[in-house]
């Protein structure tokens, strides 16, 4: 996959710049990526568009490792972007990791 081949890790900010159970976005030339911080301080990155009607997932309510889209309440798994059954669909997910307090995103 060419996307994986050209993947590069970028520093995007510190963990405490995102509230717990909150989200902020990273803008790239081609996409808007929502970075989520769960209650256990794990971080996730998904394309900021719900697979249903492109709602901004970064504005949703986080619970566990899931986010509820603010437009029509689809629930999306943060781990892989999959919609929780019975809904079907997937938001693109991006590799993301913490180096100490620094959030690193692969794009």
């Amino acid at each position, binding site marked *: 996959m060419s996307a994986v081949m050209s993947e590069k890790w*970028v520093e995007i900010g510190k963990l405490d710049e995102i509230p*717990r159970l*909150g989200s902020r976005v990273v803008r790239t*030339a081609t996409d808007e990526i929502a*970075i989520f911080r769960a209650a256990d301080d794990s971080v996730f990155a998904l394309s900021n568009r719900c697979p249903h*009607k492109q709602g*901004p997932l970064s504005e949703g*309510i*986080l619970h566990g490792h899931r986010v509820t889209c603010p437009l029509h309440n689809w629930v999306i798994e943060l781990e892989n972007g999959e919609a929780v059954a019975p809904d079907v669909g997937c938001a693109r997910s991006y590799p993301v990791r913490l180096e100490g307090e620094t959030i690193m995103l692969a794009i």
Partner: protein
Amino acid sequence: MKERLVLIGNGMAGVRTLEELLKLEPNKYDITVFGSEPHPNYNRILLSPVLAGEKQFDEIVLNRREWYQQHDIALHSGSPVVEINRVQRKVVAANGVEAGYDRLLLATGSSPFIIPVPGASLEGVISFRDIHDVEQMLAASRQYKRAVVIGGGLLGLEAANGLIKQGMDVSVVHLMDTLMERQLDAAAGAMLKRSLEENGMHFLMGAQTEAILGDKRVEAVRFADGSVVDADLVVMAVGIRPNIELARQAGLYCERGVVVNDTMQTYDPRIYALGECVQHRDTCYGLVAPLFEQAKVCANHLAELGYGRYEGSVTSTKLKVTGIDLFSAGDFHGDEQTEEIVFQDQAGGTYKKLVIKDNRISGAVLYGNTVDGAWYFQLMREGTDISDMRESLLFGEAAHLGSSGHGGQSKASAMGDEAQVCDCNGVCKGDIVKAITSEGLFTVDEVKAHTKAGASCGSCVGLVEQILANTLGGDYSAPEAKPLCACTDFTHDQVRSTIREYELTDKQGVFDKMDWRTPDGCHVCRPAINYYLISAWPGKAQDDAQSRFVNERVHGNIQKDGTFSVIPRILGGKTTPDELRAIADAADKFNVGEVNLTGGQRINMLGVKKEDLPAMWAFLTERGLVSGHAYGKALRTVKTCVGSTWCRFGTQDSTGLGIQLEEMTWASWMPHKFKMAVSGCPRNCAEATIKDFGVVCVDSGYELHIGGNGGVKVRATDVLCRVTTEEEVMEHCAAFIQLYREEARYLERTAPWIERIGLSYIKKRILEDVDGRKALYTRFLESQDVAQHDPWTVRAKGAEAHEFTPIKQIGE
């Protein structure tokens, strides 16, 4: 090593318990299931449609063999258990298979009762209980013509209906004089009989079966009066009895059924039981709905969570015979302490009877028009005081509340499959019926999740509930008390009273105290809990931004494209050229996509990008405008007319009063949005009679109105009282709002709240209890001290900046 759980009975009750258990504790047990039928678990409710030829067996299977494999459950089908050895803690099946247990679950169901008459064991005499019986009936219908069904109850009539559909000539024999006498009174029973006769069913009423005649196969049935009816097939459907033989042999205490306590435990604490085989608080249930409530409780205890009690079910009944609408619930016969409200239209084929005890519905029978069955059932379950709606009660919910959004359509059974039920999401009746039967759905919430019907504005939920009831027939009943969400079994009211009683001030306290199933709740419970906390402890409980829906967190309304709308407050609808210029300049400066006028006398600027919001608010607040809270579960607008200042009919200064009301109430968080209006005279140009709180000025003072709604369900207000001064208007308004804030459930508008608790109660609290009113008024003003800060001003100055800016921009 895992504990061993053995389930005896591969039916709906037992397997539902396993499903609930797997949701709670997927890895706690090694599970083994014994079933006497050679099939996986299927939906027994839908046997009638299979018999009527409307469905195939495949379509009613609930859990296929793959499901058992996926969850590592050992399934022994076609393998009845013949012994429970409680000393060695093992069960033994007829084929010799043994399984040891740490916990045992009995769900052995019930058997049809066979009348002990001569000839009962002849070929062609069968019951109506499982798929094997249905197959036998279908086979007989291909070969024979004449059928006799013994038993004119729910099951017997469904069997008779199916056999007629298969082309047989069917006579129903009933011992009593009324069909379905356990569900219907004499009047409704007679109407049902007439309709079924029109479908070609024959009846022998008050007939006692004496013998079944024939050599090898049944040939006729003889009755106590000596009469004889020819028959090639006899179906016995006179009732069921719990299967308790196995439990009795094992020495478990049984009466009519296996006796269990409120945690579904038998007298042996290692052994649980549920479903049709049990007797709980002296009741044995023969419908499916109670089983699901039992399954939830049982799974909870098997998972060792240790809370959850089953306290019995109120059930309702519907008959699954096409073209017949019938509903019954509760104690519909009544006694000396009850009274009846009856509507009877023989020619129109409509009959309604409500049994009332202490101003509450204790039973209902509906025939011909069952639209309001679900509504009556809800009033009954919730114990709603109906004294305020006695006069219109029989005319149903529609007479009470006008609905928008399903074209006046309210009769589910008369709808075609293509008829649209949910107008928000475009879901047709056929889609819903298909989802119910193919996905095995039993609750409105499940239908919402799978089809989206009723998941948006909610106006069609009653219709969805009816379709569910029609499809599942006698086996559907709405849950007793609805839990707040899937994270808990507690209701809104229980959560709220716990917050008060234990002085909980943050969400974690609630989750800990009430054993929340999820670590941080979900999008349903978090906003509700946040509201309950900040309304119970103003200034003390921390408002949690991450538990707010985006609109309230960002102080603007999110639109479908992710942009926001900006609506400044225009007090009482009265504005100035300077304010209008400021709004126009803001719209120019921030490239607003569209400007429109709202129904609440304000101006809406649409299409604003999120990162532009703080700057736009700064621009507006510098010019004296503040947030209109058009995005919140909060006071929205106070609509006014120009009143006595200008209008030749005006009796009071309605505009001035509207402004005072808005100044007092703006920024107060509520269970749902809240709208007010003040009209200057009874011509009511400000439409005060469809607002949450409305004032109609009259020559002698002010008429106060409450509980109106112009949205999903139109509801005209109830008149609260008349007062003579503006000060009294203010005090009553604040007291009413505070009562609503303290007692209504989150996301409950004032209209359904008043429907639920009754106008009398509100009058008692606001009018009769003068000290109480003053205390409510004071509490409202105190909470306003904390709440009345313009959210735009502080954010324009940089508060919560992280909310409005990307964390990083990469590339252009």
